Structure formats: structure tokens, C-alpha cells
């Protein structure tokens, strides 16, 4: 029963939701709309569970003064402050002079931008390390990468003689070999996705329930 019930629910809901693509009748769509709403409610309710998990994982470590407890304390304080500021601010929390807006503008925004901008540095170090012309394939990849990178930025257009051709070569690389490879990956992945979906819906795949053992 423990394994049968999830399989039956998965099959029924999966078939109904796939049917949505082929059955436009509004009565059918009323059923799928209801199911989508249930999904949204479940996902939203899980946020509460997520919050509980955060506290469950981090609070005991702070209390027991385990290794790196100070980081977890900072996280918990930030959590409490943000929730309080949001709750106190209510609907106007994004108005000028609100604490929540202040947290957003002067803590969240710069922290978020900092994490994202790390990419520039990591791309430099990863590219430096990984891009080596070890064989013909790698050399071709390297050549294409350099051409695209130069042509992508305006400075490429100002290079004498080849400047005019660079964007054309780049567009060719991006539009022909690049798109061909991406479409191949995309089509393969889409078929894999359909197969995975069907495996789960049809109950052939049960890895998530624990194998048969």
C-alpha cells in the first residue's frame, strides 16, 4: 500500500495533466485548473516547512556552539529581522522609509549583485585553466571562442580590416554550428524528458520510492 498509493496518484494526476494539452474543453480545464491550484498551495505551504527546517538545522548548532556556529547565528538573526520587518511593514513594506525596503536596497541588493559578479572572476579563472588546445577538437573550440568573444564586444568592430568580418563570422558560428548543437541537445533532452515523465507516470520508474530490493 505504501508504494501502490503514490503510484496510483502519480498515474491519475499525470494522465489528467498530459490530457490538458489535447483536450481544450472548458469542463476539463476546470479540473486541471483545480489541480494546478492544489500544486501552488502545496508549494506555498512547503515554505513553512522550509523555515522549520532552517531553524531545526541551524539553531541546535548555535546552542551547542558547534563549529562555525557564528555564521548560523548571523543567518538566524537575518531571518528573524527580515520576517519581522516584512510583517510590520505589511502592504507598504516597499514604500520609502520602510525597514524592509532598506534591507532590500542596502543589504540584499549589494549582496546579490556581489554573488552574481563573482561569475566574472570565476569565468576568467575557469577559462584560463580549461581552455587548452590539447587536440584538434579543443583547438577548434578555442578558436571559435576567441572569435566570438572578440566580435561580441564593440572593440572587435574597430579592429582594422578583419573588424568588418568578425561579426559575420561570429553570427555564422552562433547561428549555424552553435544552434545545430543546441538543437541536438534540446531535442535529445526533450525526448529524455518525455521518456522520464512517462516512466514515472506509468510506474516503471520507482527509484524515488526506494528500489524493489
Amino acid at each position: 500500500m505504501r508504494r501502490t498509493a503514490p503510484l496510483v496518484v502519480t498515474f491519475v494526476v499525470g494522465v489528467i495533466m498530459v490530457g490538458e494539452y489535447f483536450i481544450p474543453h472548458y469542463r476539463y480545464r476546470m479540473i486541471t485548473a483545480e489541480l494546478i491550484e492544489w500544486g501552488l498551495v502545496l508549494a506555498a505551504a512547503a515554505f513553512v516547512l522550509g523555515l522549520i527546517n532552517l531553524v531545526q538545522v541551524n539553531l541546535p548548532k548555535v546552542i551547542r556552539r558547534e563549529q562555525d556556529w557564528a555564521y548560523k547565528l548571523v543567518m538566524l538573526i537575518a531571518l528573524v529581522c527580515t520576517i519581522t520587518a516584512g510583517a510590520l511593514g505589511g502592504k507598504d513594506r516597499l514604500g520609502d522609509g520602510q525597514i524592509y525596503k532598506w534591507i532590500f536596497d542596502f543589504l540584499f541588493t549589494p549582496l546579490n549583485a556581489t554573488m552574481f559578479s563573482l561569475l566574472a572572476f570565476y569565468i576568467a579563472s575557469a577559462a584560463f585553466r580549461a581552455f587548452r588546445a590539447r587536440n584538434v577538437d579543443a583547438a577548434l573550440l578555442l578558436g571559435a571562442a576567441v572569435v566570438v568573444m572578440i566580435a561580441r564586444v564593440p572593440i572587435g568592430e574597430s579592429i582594422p580590416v578583419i573588424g568588418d568580418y568578425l561579426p559575420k563570422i561570429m553570427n555564422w558560428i552562433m547561428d549555424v554550428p552553435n544552434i545545430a548543437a543546441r538543437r541536438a541537445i534540446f531535442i535529445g533532452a526533450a525526448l529524455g524528458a518525455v521518456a522520464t515523465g512517462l516512466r514515472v507516470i506509468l510506474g516503471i520508474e520507482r527509484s524515488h520510492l526506494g528500489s524493489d530490493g
Partner: protein
Amino acid sequence: MTTLLIHLWVSLAVAAPPTGLTVEPPPHNGGLNLDLSWELPEDDGGAVSGYAVLRATDEAGPYVLVADALPAGTHTFRDKVTTDPRVDPLLDTYWYRIVSLELGAAPFVPADPDTPDPEAHASWMLSSFAATAPVVGQPRAVWINTRLGWLHLMALIGVVGGLMLYYARRAQQGEEIFIRRIPGIDAIEEGIGRATEMGRPVLYVPGIDELQDIQTIASMLILGQVSETVAEYQADLIVSCCIPIVREVADEVVKAGFYQAGHPDAYNPADVRFISSEQFAFTAGTNGIIHREKPATNLYLGRFFAESLILAETGFVNRSIQIAGTAEATQLPFFVAACDYTLIGEELFAVSAYLSRDPRLVSSLKASDFIKIYVVVCLLLGTLLNTLGYTYLVQLFTLGEGG
């Protein structure tokens, strides 16, 4: 005489209404829409600055305004007669009138500016401007979208499902199925073994997408296999989640995996962690786990975005064995550059079947291979036929509106 002149002036000033209004249900439609079309009056774009659409449930009214200020030149409109049939039930007939709005006419002033009144607005329009005679429309719902593209898609899904069940049955009867070696997947088990030897945990990141994304679902299936292997090796597993509901499911999956491996006591719910639903807060938190808990093996399997390289570079600095898998083409180069193994696109969807070594699952991969051959043949044939000017195959793959 004066009265007659004034009357004449007024009737001349009123812009002509549109003509030939028709109201038809769209084909292949769910029954909630009606397509209106009309012929433009001569002074369209001149004295007529635009059109408004009025709807009633009875020919005599009352009419309500459903679309205001459609720009001049507009001669079609699709009306959704009810937004939610559960609240506002669908009726058999609806009546429509189209109003020609005049250039420079004074706007409608509602009695209470804060509560728009579409009924009063419509009645004001009917008394101020010229309108077509009422025309009736009957919504019509169809059960099956019979457009060629949709039928073809339905048939394809049916064929894949059928083939899967067929091959699963043959596998159950003992037929051997060949599957090529995928080094990236073999490395997962080696990575778990390495973590066991080093006495350090395995980190599993199921991407940052919602549970309903197929890559996250595939990742949960893989997690089932991974957690079982980790439990068998008696190693530690940390799962870092960005979406709360994914954590809940991951928790159940890991629990089931440890249970199946015969080590339910080794399962620790605190190791399946929700970090943050904010992309970069999650990235910072997971980086913290990599730096502090020093996992020997990092598995990034699922749907990733800009955080892919930040995670993988941090793992590289930590000297972890890293195996990534995603169908997100934009992130593949980053994973290829920074990880030891990368599973590309469909390989991600084959992992759980490959790891399970369950013949029924492995055989199901064969079904998608058949469809792949079909797609390749259609691509080649379609390119040839389209070049020669025949578009049959293109039509077969054109979905059009789903209704």
C-alpha cells in the same frame, strides 16, 4: 427649421457604426471564447477613433463593456465570455454590439470614480455613439483538439508509452538490453566510494528549479539511487535544496533510500537542507557547505543557472570530485570547464535507469531511442521536402493554438 438643422447636424456628427458583425466560436476551442469580426466603416481612422465591444446575455440588454478603445483599424476581437466558469457559469448565447468611438468625444465620467461600472459605461456609449445591431453568438466547446500537429503529438506520446511497456515486458521475460557505458555515471559510484575512504560527505545539489520541472524530477529519481548507494557504503550524504517542496520530497527519497539499503538508523533529516529560495543566497549557503564540511564528492544534477560556475569553481578549489548533469545548455560549458564529468542533456534522464541496472528501466531507454530515430528521419525528410516546396511534414510538426 432650426430643429431640423440641429437634428441633421447631430446625425451627421455621429460616426457610422461598423457593418457585417459576425460572432463565431473559434475552432478547436474550449468553449469560453467567441471570435467577433466586423467590417470597418468608411470614416475609420478619421471621425472614428476606435471601437468598443459590448456584451449582454439578452438581446435587449443590459450590455456591459468588455473592450474599450480598440484602436482604429481593428476589425476582429476574441472575447472570453467568462473568466472562471466555476464562479460565472457559461451560458448558451451571448449578444454583442460594436460601438464606433468618435474622435474628440468627451470621456465617460462614472458616478463614483473609484468603482468602474461597465454597465453604466456601456449604456452611456450606446446613447452617445453609433453601434451595430445586436448579433448573437453561441459558444461551442470541443473535447479533442483535432489539429493535425496536436494529433501527431498525441500519437507520438502514445507510441513512446506503448514501446516502453513493450520493452519493459520483454526485459521482464529475461531479454538482455545493451546500454553504452557513460563514464560520468560510472564516476558517481566511484565518487561515493572515494568519499567513504576519505571519511568525508557526498554533497548532492538537485538544481534550483521547482519540483514540477522534469530535470528536478529526474534528479529526485537519481537521488533515490545515490542515497541507497551512500547508505550501503555507510558514507554521509548532504542534500542542499533551493526550493522548500523539493527539500520535502528529497527528504522522503533519501529516507526511502537508506531504508532500502538496510540502514534506516543512519538517515539524518538535518542532512537534507533547505538553504534559501533566493538563487544567490542559496549559492552562498551551498558554497559555505563546500568550504566548511569539505565534501569529497559533489553531485550537481538537475536544472542550474548562473550559480553553476560559482558552485563548481568552489568545489574545484576544495579538490572535490565533481560530477554535473543538466539539460540546461547555457550552463553546460561552465560545468565542462570546472567539473570532472558532465552529463549532457538526455544523459541526465538516463542516469537513474543506468544506476538502477533494473532491466525494465534500462529497456525503457530503447523506446526513446526509437523516437529519436523517427525525429532524425523526419528532420532529414522535412528539410528535403521543404526545400522542394512540399510542406506536409512541417504541418505535421506545427502545433498552432492549443485553445
